[in-house]
Each structure stands twice: as C-alpha cells, then as structure tokens.
C-alpha cells in the first residue's frame, strides 16, 4: 500500500503533472493536438508510440534551424517540426532576427498541419531561463556557440529536461565532468550530437566493428584527420569593437566567456580563446575512440611535436592528429586505421580498405558488436520515451571530448603531456592541470 505522505502521496498543489492534466483537458475540449509531455502519462496510459514529446529548440543558427526546420545537412527531412511524435513548444535565441524567423515559420507549419489559421502556440524567448522554467517542456535541443553547450545542458538537466546537445559538448574537462555528473544526478536522457554512431548508412559502425574484430590485423596507427582542441586563451579579452547589431543580446551570447566588446566577425566562440580544432575534431575523435575502445584506466601519452599531436596508447597504438598521406577518405568526420594485415579508412561518404575485401566481407556471427542504432534523433526521442540510455550518452560523449581537450591543451601549452583518463588529470604536470577548467563569468558558474 502506498504511504499517505512522502514521495508517493497524491499531490494537490499545481505541479508539472497537474498543470499538464489541466492543459490536456483544455486541449481536448477545444479539439487541439495532444500536447502532453511524454512523461506525463499515468501507468495505464503510457504507451510508447502515442507520447508526443514537447520540445524547445535553443539556438537558431544554421545548426539549430536545420534541426528545427530541416535543411541540406539535416538527417530528418523537414526537421523536428515535421515529426508527428514531436511538438515544438518553444524556440529561443539571443538574436532577434533569427528568433523571429524561426518562430514565424514554426507557427506557420503547425497552422497548416493542424488546419488552424493563426496558430500561435509555439512561443519565442530570448532568455533560455524562461524556457527551462516551463513545466510542460520535456526536452531541449541545444545548438549554440560552443561555449554555451555545457553550461546550458547542465542548467537544462537540473530543470528536469532531457537534452540533445550539439558538439562540442564541452570546452573544458571540468565542463565535461559537470555534464556527466548532472546527467547522473538528475537521471536525464542526454544525447550528444556525435551522430556518426548512428547515421551515414552505418559506415562508421561497420568500420568500428571491423577494427575491433581485427579485420585489418593488429591495430598499429590511426590517423584522425584533425588536430584536437580545447579552451586555451591566447588573449583573455579584446579591444576591437563594433556596434552591437539591433536585437542582439551580446552579453547573453557571451554568457560564461570573458567579456569582450562585440566584433563584426564574431560568429562562434572567438578563436583566440581556443587552441586547435574543437568544431570538427569531436566527430573524428569520437569515432576513433569508438573503434579503438581504449582502456578506461591506462594513461595516454600525448606527444607534442612541432604543432602536431600524437596520442600513444598503452597498447602501442598511436593516434595521429593528422591526415594519412595520400588517403582522401577520412576527411569528413572519419579516420584511417593501419593494421598488420591492411588499412581501412572511413568517412561520411566512403568506407574503403586495402585490400578491398577487408571492408566488404562481413564479420562472422559471434564477432564483437557495438550498439546498433539507426538515426540519432530517433534514438534520442525513443530514449525520452523509454528512459533507455542513448548511444551518445554523457559518459561516452565526455570520454571522447576529454580526449580532444587533453590533446588541445598539449597543443596550447606546446608540450607533451600524460593524460590519466580515470582521474581526468595530467600526470606530473600541475601547471597543465590548471587549464582543465575556467571560471565562468558571473552569474554562469555551475
């Protein structure tokens, strides 16, 4: 029998649940589409396919608008707005023109779909805290300037939201740790935008399984096609200044970053705050980590050599932060693997091997397999409904990102380092360890 008080007693106050119940009654009365959040159904009514997930999209640049409305690069034609299992409830951006455009388009799409001229239920916000305060929103999609990803993901998870976060998921090791610990503490579904694990016709999954099962023999070297990167300011702030465009909340855009005047060429996290590449490298190294499946406890020697980074693993495998000479496959998020019996390279367009049959012959039953998931967004939405762990869950995403960040710091510091993947610290280099975090600008400390 349930106790009469405590966590399982019926609640009489206005909670997220009662709010939703009232909303549901209201919407039913007016014949509106189902707006119940996925988590709001009682035990009897909780069926997987009927739950429509209420989503907010925060960040409406190319990536965010692509996720929301569809576009050339997106994985779901028409974006989230076109999905029957998602109800976009809010959009948010600090740039008014982007916000207005996306807001108008969302309402137009729903007006047409639900045959409700003048539809206005998709709300627009310039302050994400108002979005996070809404109890009816199940999940947020974050496609922001790099420096906002970790902070906003943590705040969203604390507010009880499930999160899809674009890469890079963090700019410092401390941020990556905060993402993991927050997801664990608040038990949120978090999917990192490292979609190569699920998209591109399974090429990366196939390559990963071939490597893990030693199809190319004993693995010796990996070429990751990108330098790693990290938050490593070469200049803390800047004096170049341009007028802030009308409708652009520059201070909010900067958020946790050191303050600096607006500059005309500001599109993403200023490059003088970063060493190396934090944009594409998360894709490359996420895949490398997936295929390599390194020991979670063995230290990794990160060699700095005249602007190049090489990771030396305890198994003897060397990961180069560079192209494999002469091999063009690998440039789009991929890598090239050298083994004792051959070579294999993969990217978003191709999977090739030398000799060719290594990649074309399937693995026998009983081979080591990795998670089989097709579709990154589907996986995220499924996991919101089922509470299963998504494929790019925080632990895996953080481990990949920390590899990038540790190498990026070696690049910034211009010296070789030894990374302890268990303690998330450099061994024997206290100065390098001072760069594992930065203090976010007030009030964005976590």
């Amino acid at each position, binding site marked *: 029998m*349930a106790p009469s008080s*405590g*966590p*399982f*007693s019926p*609640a009489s*106050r206005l*909670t*997220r*649940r009662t709010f939703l119940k009232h909303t549901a009654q209201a919407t039913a009365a007016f014949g509106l589409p189902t707006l119940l959040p996925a*988590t*709001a*159904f*009682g*035990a*009897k*009514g*909780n*069926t*997987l*396919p009927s739950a429509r997930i209420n989503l907010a999209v925060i960040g409406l640049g190319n990536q965010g608008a692509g996720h929301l409305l569809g576009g050339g690069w997106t994985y779901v034609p028409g974006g989230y707005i076109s999905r029957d299992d998602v109800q976009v409830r809010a959009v948010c951006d600090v740039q008014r023109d982007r916000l207005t455009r996306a807001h108008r388009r969302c309402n137009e799409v729903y007006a047409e779909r639900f045959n409700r001229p003048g539809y206005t239920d998709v709300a627009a916000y310039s302050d994400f805290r108002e979005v996070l305060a809404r*109890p009816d929103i199940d999940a947020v999609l974050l496609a922001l300037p790099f420096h906002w990803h970790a902070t906003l993901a943590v705040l969203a*998870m*604390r*507010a*009880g939201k499930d999160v899809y976060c674009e890469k890079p998921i963090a700019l410092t090791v401390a941020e990556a740790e905060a993402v993991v610990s927050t997801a664990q*503490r*608040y*038990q949120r579904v978090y999917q990192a935008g490292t979609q190569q694990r699920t998209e591109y016709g399974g090429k990366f999954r196939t390559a990963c399984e071939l490597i893990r099962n030693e199809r190319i023999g004993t693995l010796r070297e990996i070429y990751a096609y990108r330098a790693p990167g990290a938050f490593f*300011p070469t*200049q*803390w*702030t*800047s*004096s170049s200044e341009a007028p802030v465009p009308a409708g652009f909340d520059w201070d909010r855009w900067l958020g946790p970053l*050191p*303050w600096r005047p607006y500059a005309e060429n500001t599109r993403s996290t200023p490059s003088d705050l970063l060493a190396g590449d934090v944009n594409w490298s998360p894709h490359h190294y996420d895949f490398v980590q997936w295929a390599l499946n390194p020991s979670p406890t063995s230290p990794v020697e990160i060699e700095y050599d005249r602007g190049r980074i090489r990771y030396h693993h305890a198994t003897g495998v060397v990961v180069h932060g560079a192209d494999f000479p002469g091999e063009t496959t690998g440039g789009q998020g991929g890598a090239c693997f050298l083994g004792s019996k051959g070579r294999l390279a993969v990217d978003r367009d191709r999977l090739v091997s030398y000799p*060719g*049959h290594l990649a*074309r*012959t*399937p693995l*026998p*039953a*009983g081979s080591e397999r990795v998670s*089989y998931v097709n579709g990154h967004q589907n996986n995220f939405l499924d996991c919101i*409904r*089922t*509470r*299963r762990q998504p494929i790019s869950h925080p632990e895996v995403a953080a481990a990949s990102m920390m590899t990038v960040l540790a190498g990026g710091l070696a690049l910034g510091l211009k010296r070789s380092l030894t990374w302890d993947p268990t303690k998330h610290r450099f061994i024997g280099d*206290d*100065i390098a360890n*001072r760069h594992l*975090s*930065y*203090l976010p600008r*007030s*009030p964005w*400390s*976590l």
Partner: protein
Amino acid sequence: MSPRFGFRFFTARCLLALLTAVGAALSAEVGPHPRTLEQALIETLERSTDVVRRCDACRQLIDIGTPACIPALVAALSQERVSHAASNTLAKLPFPEVDSALRGALPQVTGAARIGLVDLLGIRRDGAAVEPLSPLLASADPALTEAASRALGRIGSDGALAALESQPRPFVPGVAHALLACAEIRREAGRTPEAARLYRLLMVDDSPEPIRSAAWMGLARTETSQRTELITQAFFGAQGPIRDTAFQLLRERPDRTLLAAFLGRWNELAAVQRLAVMDAHVAFGAEAVPTLRLAAKDADPGVRRAALASMSKTGDPSLVPLLLEAAAAGEMPERESARYSLARLTGPGVAEALESALERTPVPQTNEGLRALGERAEPRAAALLLRFAVNEDATVAYAAQRALVQLNDPATLAPVLDLAVARTADSVRRPLVQVAANLCADAPDKVEANRLVFAALRRIPIADRTAWFDLLPALSTTEASAEAELHALGPDPDSARAAVLAFARWHDASPTPILIRLARRDPSAPLSRLALRSAITLTDREPSGEQRLILLESIAPWAQSPEEKVLLLTQLRRIRTPAAARLVATFLVDQDVAERAAADLTDLLEVQHEAARQLAATLLPEVVKISKSPETLERAALLQEKTKSGPNGGARP
C-alpha cells in the same frame, strides 16, 4: 605628479621590466625567468590602464603565479573588466594564502564581482568561507543568494550543510540543488545515514520534481537494502519522473527478486515498464527467453521491436523459427529487429537451427534465413547457399545469390562458375555471373580467380560469351583485356559494344590505348563514339597526372561532339599543370565549348598562376576576349591584376 607624468613613468617602468624579462629570455634562450616575468605582470596588473593587457597579465599568471601575485590579483577583483580574469587565475593558484585573501576581500566587493567572488570561494572549497557566506543566503539579491547556495553546496562541510538546512521551507531551487550536492558528498564519503537523511528531506512533496527524482535516485543508491521496496513503490506509484528514474535504476542494477515480482504483474505494467523489466531481464542472458517471447507478442510495437532485437543476446537456437517468422512479415522496424538478431545470434546449435529451418519454412522465411546466412559470414553456409542459388523459385535463388555475394568467400568462385556454365537460360546464368563477378572483384588472389574464370570461359563457345563480360572488368587482368579486345574488334556489333562497356568499367586506365584505337578506326561509327567516351572516362583511373595528360592529348583530336569535348575538358581541369592549361586553351576557339573552356582555363590558372605567371599573362587575355560570362570575366580580370602585381600579389593576407 601629474597623471600624464605618472602614466609615462609607469610605461617606462613596465617597458624596463619587460625588456629585462626579454633580455633574460634571450640570454637564457628559454624565456624570461618566471619570477622576473611574474614581477613584470604584477606591475602591469597594478599600474596599466589597458584592460586587455591587465587581463592578459592575469592569464599569464595562471602558469607562473606564486603567492607574490595574490595581492595584485585580489585588488583587481573589484575592477569591473578585470575582475573575471583575476578570479579565474585565483581559482587555479594552489596556495592557501589565496583563500584568506579572498575572504578578506568579500566585504569590499560589490555587484557581479561579488557574485564571482562567492563562486570562487565555493570552487576553492574553502571551509573557512562558510561563516562569511552563510549570511548571504538571506540577501535580497536573488543572484547573490543563489551563488551563496552554490558555494556552500560545493564546500559541503557540516557548517555549510547547517547553513543550507536552516533556510526556510520549501527550499528554493538553489538551496535544494546545493543540499543534493551535500548529500552526494556524504554518500561518496560513505556517510550513508547522513546522506539518506538529506535525500529524504528533499523527497518531500514541495520539492521541485527534478530535485525529488534526483533525491529518490540518491536514496536508492545509498540505501541498497531499501532499493527493492523503493523501486516497487515507484513502479506502481503515480509520480512520472520518479517512476522514470526507477526504470533507469532497474536497468542499472538488475535484481532477480524485483524481476520476479514485476514479471508476475506483467499485464498490469505500462508498455514503458514492460520494456524496462525486459531490459533488466536480458542482463541475465538465456533465462530471459520466456520474457522475450512474451514481449515479442506485446500489444505495443516498441516493446515487440525491442524484444526481437534483444533476442540476439540470448544464444538460444529455439528462437530461430520465431525470428524467421518475424523477419518475413509485419512492419519494417520489427522485421529489421528480427533480421538484426538472426545475423547476430550466436551459441551452440544456432547455425544448425538456421540451416535446418530453411528446409521446412515457407518461401519468405527461407529467404530471410538465406539473407541471415550471408550476413553471418559463416563459411559452412556456402554449400547450402550454392544449392539454393539455383532454386526453382526465383526469389529464393536471388536471396541465395545475394547471400553468396555477402559471404564473399573466394572458395565459392569455382562452384558458382560451374553452376553458371551448366545453365543455358540467360535469366538463370546472368545472376550467377554477377555473383562470380563480385567474388572476382574482391578476390585476394587475382591470379587464381583469373585461372578459374578462363577455365570456365573455355567451356563456352566464343559467340556465347557476351553474357560473361561482367567478369572481365572484375578481373581487370591482361588476359581479360585480351578477351575484351577480341570481342571489341570482332564482327558481332552487340558483342563489340558489350566489350567496350566492359573496358569502361576497368579497374585501371590500361585499356585506354585500345579504346583510342577503336575510336580512330571508323570515327563516324557509334561504336567508335562509345569507345572514345569510354576512353576519356577511363583516363580518370590513371594516377599520374602526366600520363593522364598524354592519354587525353591523344584523344583530343578525335573528340567530335560537344558532349565529348565537355567530357574531355572535365578530365583536363583535374590536371593542374601548365600543359593541361595549354590543352584547354586550344578549345577557346571551338564554338561548341569556348565558354566552358574559358571557365575551366580560368580555374586552372587561378590555382597555378604563381607558378605559371607567364602562361597566365599569355592566356588570360584570350579568356577575356572569348568569354561572355560575367563571372568568368570578373575572375579573369582579378587574376590578371594579381599576375601583374608581382610574386606575392595574389597571396592571401
């Protein structure tokens, strides 16, 4: 002293300090001595009026700062644009003097800088800061109270906890999050009763839902003896978020007692709960089979799909018929899940179960079984697949042939060729030749593959060999080339055409001269045109740009139609040499493709104008004379300017 003089004096001192540092650096050849540099940075921090330089001094002190720089950094905390940089550095300096200095600075700092300082005290986990921080929980500024909560939660000492607990109920979110942090600190330290007390405190109804579910999880992880009861209550309780958390815990820590309890109430569970129970049960391997069988018939498609996919983990051969049935019928997501398991299910008897099922199942299931055999890549399946590859039912034969390609076993090449030789009906033989061609293309031993193919071909009359031509490019050997040439030059037009098309699919550019000869033989004949187009395309497979150009030069005079010329220009544009540019330039006078040639030539000159300045100077006026495209003209004009402006004129800034 006037401010102006003061500034000059300061500048001079700074310069002197920096010059000293630079001098030291030069003499040591390893950079200035850290103490010298630190002193220069402190002076910058204390005296410069340039915010960028002062912030940068803070940044550099992260690496070299000693207790000597602490006063200058603390003094900078109250300066609006430098405060953050100074805080960031102070957060990283590992000296106890930092903590006392920060505590001392707290009363003097206001506004955003104060919030930053409060955060800093928390980040440094300074236990002595509890006393000055605690009163801030009652501040009228919500940002400051939230920062104080955050800081006390990070510190997490008994004093910090007492201050947080003394706050009015219900706790505001900031305090509740901080109390969660305190509970976690205690749980990790093994102070279980204290942690459990805090989690219970936060599980009250008036806590925000995210806090309650986090507290529930914390409690379940802390009080392991209570876990079963907690999960049971959560499963059948009405609270969505806590129930969701319970699903996750059940998956995280599968428990036989709980499973037995839930399986007994299977029909009362919601779909998402059935899924969680099933996932937890799968962790125990084959004993989950009855649950999976039940779930595979679930009313909910998501549960059915998950059950079928999870069967791959059981190693139970008795599931094979069920999986074949599911793979052959129903909605595609479920079929895909069943196929996934059929391809990955392993264990004693699985392969045998699959093979024996093929003999007795309806055709759609047989086809799924054949597909699985291909994906499972088990060499023992080859004989079975070969037998089914000539099945009377075309769909079965096709499934087996696809599986043979998938299996990609070189040992199957000879029997596949035998089967093809023995079949006279084209509809049966062609797919088998396709299978053999796939095997040849991937054959690790090309010599042996070549031997087998030609042994088979010798059993076929020359006139009937056209259907076998797919094998020739798959081999791409000298003997294959001779065979194709024989037919290309032969009297049968269909056979000749098929031979030319076979050359077009060659793995390298070696047949290009043969195709050029064919093209020259009778320039007006359709076969010659096909040979010419094939030759142009095939040059792409020549890795050496120089050799490719030689081939294209020999083809160029024979290109007649605009399409052939465009094809030729497309290949030429990829060879970024002056010689290629010269050949492209010869097309400027060709009315069919003059505009295209002008654009391509501009492209080529853009990428090599530094190296081929003279050539660019000669050819660009021709482009300008010929082209009518504004885009090409603009690019050509720009390039002409760059060419005139000297060796670095075109270099990017």
